């Protein structure tokens, strides 16, 4: 889960990393009693390029502040809807640094990154120094100081940045973050250090040992969840939440309904569909042998999208997913909805004959335009069959 700047700064404060005085504004709490000028108004979006895209504005007085709030709130910055703003005191600064910790996938350890030239465009900077952290040991202060020294940091600054780096690592460990980043880490005109921005990504897989339920709703792919997306999320809740997953769904502006099995197959087949010049109405994937009811619920939602011109059910030769059971779930939905558009299924694996029979029966019963394939053709080939069926209509 990616945290907004204001949420990240709350964590910084908890771990005593200095941040500017600030105030959060939402659409509901537009009432502002802010008196400190000049100030900065920052759109709370996930993109790292908001500064270059008008997401950060400065105000010299109350009138300008109100104007900026009007300009930003509810607008899109970097393709992301702005639901929250952060108003902060403007900090007079001498220099900007860059400091972060994330996982280095090559070495498979946390790595601390530091640069003396922080701010926008840090990715192009070559002067970023790194320090790999051995997970079996502590982050030793002398190593941090050596890194800072190498970057040209001198005097008391060495100790002050070292202190912030160690606090940042504590956040990384104790809060189960995948990324903690301060960019810029500012040295103020009066010689203090302060985090002017905060980027934190929490590891959702560690959710069982944290209380993360209180974070407010956030955008996904730059927008609110659609009704269908919200509905699909409920499928994997409840008593049997752990029995297979059927809760992955992204609504897309296309017209081929997709029901994919397995992560790898689903992404490959999305590629195939686009390569054939078609556009899916959704991305969805069920896996881990979900029960019939879950698959039925998912199918209902996938097929509820208006304007569909084809339905594609596809997966590889399954290892252990019960093809009979999952097909029964899809058949339950088809029996009620009786879609008129072409349907192509390619599925194989345990109990595939049972699955085939279920589908042939429902096709006959409801006069569906349905073709079943097993392992005799590849998944990609079945996409071509569907496209041909659509064109023949």
């Amino acid at each position, binding site marked *: 889960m990616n945290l907004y700047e204001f949420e990240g700064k709350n964590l910084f404060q908890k771990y005593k990393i200095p941040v500017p005085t600030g105030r959060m504004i939402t659409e509901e709490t537009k009432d502002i009693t802010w008196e400190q000028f000049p100030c900065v108004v920052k759109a709370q979006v*996930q*993109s*790292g390029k908001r500064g270059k895209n008008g997401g950060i504005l400065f105000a010299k007085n109350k009138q300008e502040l109100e104007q900026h709030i009007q300009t930003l709130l509810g607008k899109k910055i*970097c*393709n992301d809807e702005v639901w929250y703003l952060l108003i902060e005191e403007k900090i007079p600064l001498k220099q900007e640094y860059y400091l*972060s*910790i*994330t*996982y280095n*996938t*090559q070495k*498979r*350890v*946390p*790595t601390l*990154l530091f640069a003396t030239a922080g701010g926008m465009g840090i*990715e192009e900077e070559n002067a970023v120094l*790194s320090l790999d952290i*051995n997970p*079996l040991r502590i982050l030793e202060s002398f190593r941090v100081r050596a890194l800072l020294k190498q970057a040209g940091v001198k005097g008391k600054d060495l100790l002050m940045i070292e202190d912030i780096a160690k606090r940042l690592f504590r956040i990384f460990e104790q809060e*189960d973050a*995948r*990324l903690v*980043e301060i960019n810029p880490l500012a040295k103020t005109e009066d010689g203090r250090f302060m985090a002017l921005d905060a*980027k934190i*990504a929490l*590891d959702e*897989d*560690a959710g069982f*040992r944290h209380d993360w339920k209180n974070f407010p709703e956030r955008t*996904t*792919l730059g*927008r609110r969840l659609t009704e269908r997306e919200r509905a699909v999320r409920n499928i994997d809740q409840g008593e049997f939440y752990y029995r297979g997953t059927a809760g992955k769904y*992204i609504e897309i502006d296309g017209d081929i309904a997709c029901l994919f*099995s*397995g*992560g*790898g*197959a689903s*992404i*490959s087949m999305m*590629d*195939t*569909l*686009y*390569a054939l010049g078609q556009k899916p109405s959704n991305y969805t994937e069920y*896996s881990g042998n979900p029960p019939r009811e879950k698959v039925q619920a998912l199918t209902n939602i996938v097929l509820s999208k208006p304007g569909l011109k084809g339905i594609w059910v596809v*997966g*590889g*030769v*399954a*290892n*252990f997913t019960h093809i009979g059971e999952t097909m029964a779930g899809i058949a339950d939905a088809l029996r009620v909805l009786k879609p008129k558009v072409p349907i192509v299924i390619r599925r*194989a*694996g*345990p109990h595939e004959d049972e699955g085939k029979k279920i589908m042939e029966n429902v096709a006959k019963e409801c006069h569906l335009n349905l073709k079943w394939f097993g392992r005799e053709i*590849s*998944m*990609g*080939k079945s996409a071509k069959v569907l496209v041909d069926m659509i064109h023949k209509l």
Partner: protein
Amino acid sequence: MSILIDEHTKLLIQGITGKEGQRALKAASNYHTEVLCGVTPGKGGLDVEGVPVYDTVAEAVENHPALNATAIYVPPFAAKDAVLEAIDSNIALINIMTERIPIQDTSYYLAAARERGTRIVGPSSLGMISTGKARIGVAGGDKPNEIYMKGNVGVISRSGGMTNEISWQLRKNTFGITTAIHIGGDLLMGTSYADALRLFEEDTATEGIVIFGEMGGRYEFDIVELLKQGGCTKPIAIFIGGKFGKHLPEGMTIGHAGAIIEKGSGSVEEKEKALRSVGVLVAANYEDLPKLIASKLLTNIIS
């Protein structure tokens, strides 16, 4: 020949009393693999289908000194400890099936394994299968012989389902398999493509390697480095899924740290270009993998 597991594999299953553990026991036993015992803390003294259960890995090893591999089927919150316990008992190969282990825990046990020279495959692995010799996990389901035939191709996959599908496509094109391994799709993994390629390079029976990759991460670039250093001289064909990502709104990769470490965006196109530059055959569709590897192999007969 094969990599990682063979007819000498003697397996322990950690979490053997759970549903998944029991399924794994059946899958291994049905495919020439001897499961000597299982471990579930608190259930020592019981047995599952005649296989004894111990409270600790140390007891398991003491009673069955031949153990040389373990499959981890414990819940995510207990996984780190289970892996560390196996490392501590000097089990040479640890295959972690548990999904959704916190990345911090994975980073920790991977470091511990490196210190001791323990081989880890996973997390989030479906397992591996050495044709005709042994299997850990459920690759191939209840009819593995319909898909896995002895041959000369090695399979490495980041997707469990695609491990099977690709092996099936190879079979359809008269290729057999030495070992197929699902390395798992997590950000941090014990055995990367490059690690597995090093093993296949040493295996005399493997003449070519087929890989299923996915967008994200930078493990494909490690293949490029390996080949530049001459670490794998056998032909490799790869398919990387996930090009459709560019059709979706800008993703939620936040911050700059990933991009700085990764030196580039790690898009599918970027990976393909880098791989082609070192002679890897890149497939536009996964179905093309058998054809591509065939162009580089002298024999493609299922032995």
